[in-house]
């Protein structure tokens, strides 16, 4: 399956809270970052509640500046957080 996003592309992490187990922490929801790495296909966490997580979804590592995550961040503008996000949680961003 072709990857939708490529390294360096800006993406926004969806801000939603499905009523099932999911692997996106609240602090990252709605934030914009850059694709750091395109990873493999893995079972979708939201679908393990019934079934086996199929169809599998691609994971990306997204790099987000700490100053984007926290308005009162104490550190430098070059400090980053990197996090694994499934493709269906991402959309292209300006």
């Amino acid at each position, binding site marked *: 399956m072709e990857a939708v996003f490529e390294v360096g592309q800006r993406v926004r992490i969806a801000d939603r809270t499905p009523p099932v187990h999911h692997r996106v922490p609240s602090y990252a929801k709605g934030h914009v970052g850059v694709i750091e790495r395109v990873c493999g296909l893995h079972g979708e966490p939201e679908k393990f509640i019934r079934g086996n997580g199929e169809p599998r979804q691609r*994971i990306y590592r997204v790099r987000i500046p700490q100053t984007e995550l926290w308005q009162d961040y104490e550190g430098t503008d070059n*400090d980053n957080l990197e996090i694994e996000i499934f493709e269906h949680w991402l959309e292209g961003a300006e």
Partner: protein
Amino acid sequence: MSDHDHDHDHSRTFQPDHAEPTSDGARIGLALRELLIEAGHYTPEEEQVVIAAMQKASPADGGRIVARAWTDPEYKERLLANGAAAIRELGYELEPYEFTVMENDDTTHNVIVCTLCSCYPRSLLGMSPAWYKSASYRARIVREPRAVLAEFGVELTEDVNVRVHDSTAELRYMVLPQRPHGTDNWAEEELAALITRDSLIGTQRVLKRNREPGDS
């Protein structure tokens, strides 16, 4: 002991060297394991093999990988490009996870956390430290990494960028710490002995030599 009439052997499911379950969670866990074995999903022997492998894993294995990367630039390149494949070269099996190795250098410091639970490269580095699973570390290291690192004794100047890696899904991480100065002629086994668990997680930055250069 109960004498209910089925033929599996509880003494092989519940290992005598494990503590008696004292909480509801532990009792549920034990009951679930017994049911999975009873239903034929895996055997007690297979469970023993997995537990033994996990108990055998330790930070020394991570140290061996780091020492190889320090002494073999081509291996280091493969390790940073595809961690799982390079680690498998040295005889370690990390399926089903992707494995990512993050390199520290003069201007970058990497540190690992799992904010959602406590994901840790257990099959490679063994049991995680208690603080790694604490709510305090998990919440604070993403929010104020420099303050938390300072509490671990890692003082970072402003020209060093912090990269926090939140292990939220199917990847597992290990930090490749910097090789200490004055170890140019050291053998791989000597180098491996310098590497600590915390340096592989990123809560230690500077590795200490255990002998001075020139000592035999």
